[in-house]
């Protein structure tokens, strides 16, 4: 038994609409999409044209700056559309399924005899390479680096997040195979597990080092766990990957096929029956929300969780890395003297609203900003929800003035957007801290490479 790392700072936002551990039934949609915007720093170059046939596993586009990093179609069918935004930036690459589910065969391998180069090549060919992301910067891993470790957070503490113990059930073999493959890339594999969960699958996995964590969100973030286990310093990299993706990598090498199936949780206060669903990466979300919304107000649909997810339309698509779909009220209405009311239904980490009288209440929080943007005035709030030895306010200020030395010294290498999402949630000045952090990271990449 390894010792338990207790995370004290942080916050579990008590949202309504947690999913039961049951599976909902829904038809797979016709449309699937891979969104280049899900990948930090990737500039997509299309490989095929609209109308061309694809199989599940055929390359759709690659990264202009790293041509070996390929992004593949999750289903067979044809390229339906390439949706572009401002300045012709590619937003969505949409594939229409033909329902035949033909897949590209990349060939089985005997994992024990594999070389590192073969693993890298195969993962790139099959489009599983983007699963590996690196700290610092939270961008897709660079194969030429040798990371000091590969880190897997085995649980998710974000609001309404899926229970990985539940969704990984039955995937023991693939997971172990995935770990064996990853060991060819880097010997050192760590898994962070929730001390309060059973985590049978992880505990039975061979060849990994287990770390136990206990505490509120963001305890489940890989970045937070890495900080406590093996902090990333200048010049070092640690790769991260999510449990379902490890299983997909395992399956690629044991069956020769890229497994795009995913288990997602559909949750949130506006969902009639919050539940888990079997689906496929990049699926159109329509089947999971049609007849499943219990509100007449405007509803905000989010691929991912309420802190880090991306807003999607009713016809939108699941994000590449997401295993969660959340629906909350939009809250785009005016509230009379809202700042002066007792505010029993309002959630705040402070006790400035009287909702602290009901400690166990679950809230139907909406997407309203609850106030206007202001300069930073109040101090000491970010520190309450960032369980790292980092001075968040000073770091953000160094980013705002583009002081690269300070950014480096104050720990920008250790942070990804998800780690500071709670700081953004509690910020009384309503700053966009995740955006600020990403700007800082982009500046670092530009200046330092």
């Amino acid at each position, binding site marked *: 038994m390894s010792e338990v790392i207790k995370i004290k700072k942080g916050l579990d*936002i008590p*949202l309504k609409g947690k999913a039961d551990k049951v599976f909902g039934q829904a038809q797979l949609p016709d449309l699937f999409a891979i969104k280049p915007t899900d990948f930090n720093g990737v500039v997509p170059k299309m490989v095929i044209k609209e109308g061309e046939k694809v199989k599940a596993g055929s390359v759709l586009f690659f990264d202009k700056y790293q041509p070996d990093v390929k992004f593949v179609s999750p289903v067979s069918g044809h390229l339906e559309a390439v949706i572009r935004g401002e300045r012709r930036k590619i937003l969505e690459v949409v594939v229409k399924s033909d329902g035949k589910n033909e897949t590209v065969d990349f060939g089985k391998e005997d994992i024990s005899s594999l070389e590192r180069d073969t693993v890298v090549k195969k993962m790139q060919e099959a489009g599983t390479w983007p699963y590996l992301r690196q700290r610092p910067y939270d961008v897709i891993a660079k194969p030429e680096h040798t990371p000091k470790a590969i880190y897997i957070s085995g649980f998710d503490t974000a609001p309404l997040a899926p229970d990985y113990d539940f969704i990984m059930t039955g995937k023991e073999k693939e997971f172990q195979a995935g770990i064996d493959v990853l060991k060819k890339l880097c010997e050192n594999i760590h898994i962070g597990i929730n001390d309060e969960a059973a985590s049978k699958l992880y505990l039975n996995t061979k060849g990994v080092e287990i770390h136990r964590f206990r505490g509120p969100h963001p305890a489940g973030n890989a970045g937070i766990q890495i900080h406590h286990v*093996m*902090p990333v*310093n200048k010049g070092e990299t640690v790769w991260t990957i999510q449990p379902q993706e490890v299983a997909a990598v395992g399956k690629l090498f044991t069956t020769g096929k890229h497994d795009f199936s995913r288990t997602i949780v559909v949750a949130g206060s506006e969902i009639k029956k919050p539940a888990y669903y079997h689906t496929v990466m990049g699926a159109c979300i329509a089947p999971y929300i049609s007849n499943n919304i219990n509100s007449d107000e405007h509803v*905000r649909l*989010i691929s991912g969780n*309420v*802190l*880090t997810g991306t807003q999607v339309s009713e016809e939108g698509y699941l994000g590449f890395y997401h295993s969660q779909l959340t629906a909350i009220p*939009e*809250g*785009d209405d*005016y*509230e*009379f*003297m*809202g*700042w002066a009311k007792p*505010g029993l239904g*309002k*959630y*705040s980490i*402070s*006790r*400035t*609203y009287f*909702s602290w009288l009901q400690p166990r209440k679950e809230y139907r*929080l*909406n*997407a*309203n*900003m*609850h*106030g*206007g*943007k*202001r*300069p*930073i*005035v*109040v*101090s*000491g709030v970010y*520190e309450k929800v960032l369980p790292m*030895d980092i*001075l968040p306010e*000073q770091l953000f200020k160094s980013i705002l003035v583009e002081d690269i030395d300070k950014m480096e010294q*104050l720990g920008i290498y250790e942070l990804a957007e998800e780690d500071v*999402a709670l700081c*953004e*949630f509690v*910020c*009384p*000045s*309503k700053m*966009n*801290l*995740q*955006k600020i952090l990403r700007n800082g990271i982009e500046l670092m990449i530009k200046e330092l490479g």
Partner: protein
Amino acid sequence: MKALRRFIDKIKPHFEKGGKFEKLHSTFDAFETLLFVPNTTNKEGVHVRDAMDMKRTMATVVLALVPALLFGIWNAGYQHFLATGQEADFWPMVGHGFLKVFPIIVVSYVTGLAIEFIFAQIRGHEVNEGFLVSGMLIPLVLPVDIPLWMVAVATAFAVIIGKEVFGGTGMNIWNPALLARAFLFFAYPAYMSGDTIWISGLTSGEGIVDGFSGATALGTAVTTGNIDKFSFMDSFLGIIPGSIGETSALAILIGAFILIYTGVGSWRIMLSVFAGGFLMALGFNAIGSTPLMQIPAWHHLVLGGFAFGAVFMATDPVSATRTTKGKYIYGFLIGVFSIMIRVFNPAYPEGVMLAILLMNTFAPLIDHFVVESNIKQRLKRASVTA
């Protein structure tokens, strides 16, 4: 409320870009957001946000000031009738105090907010809520018999020189309310000290009882060599002469409780100011060569503006240190310097104001050292693992 909303929506276009009253956009926005929490939703980043915003934060501080304000109003009346030797019931005292205190508050808010609105308009920003607190703090640190024009001049000075020249709320170096106080203290020293300004009516000399002195406890200590006239209990409850809001440690403690419990004010700063002041006073007790040194340490903490400064002034997040460790150092030094200046200042036996302004100046330096130590610690970690 729907009718009101409809009315606002109807007139709103006139204040938007290209509208008739485009120049008054900030003003319109300030009133609109005061009446209605805007319907803006999160566009990027987090989808849900904590319900606390700047308006609520500032409103909570104002709420925390209310006990001190109410007590100040009553005490203004009480001291007046005590000085003039008249018998009076509770309500006449409150009534007298109200008539004295309310105009000061009105002048402070009107002057300050007018300047805030003008500057927001010039900059094209939203009006900041910071002055809601400053506007209440300024009256509470002034003596009750102050001429109203002085309130206006001091407020204007504090808002323009103390805040707007630095870029508005969140950018200032010194606490604006204390700056107003300091301005008056140095610009009109004859008014701001002495025995008459602290009790309403004394400056104009209306029917004072023979032998009555309106001096504050600290002033009395200097002139008579002791403070026997002011018991610890009286000083704690606040039935002594002094600035409007500063006398009652009890009312201030209620405010402190509100600030700490809601999480708006920093308990670290409050605690360390009291700790620093107590230890310093204890040290002076041991020397004991002047009357002020002989005041017992615990009594020092409830006299003058010490408690008020510790709870409401030192904790102003903008002018205080911003790092957690820095807060302890900053608070402790405020406590130490408050008592030190109080004891050694020959001109005026009070030091809280100057101590806080001094430490405001040094707050960035303290933060700098805390940040540097964090950087060093992080570097050490790197060399250990390497």
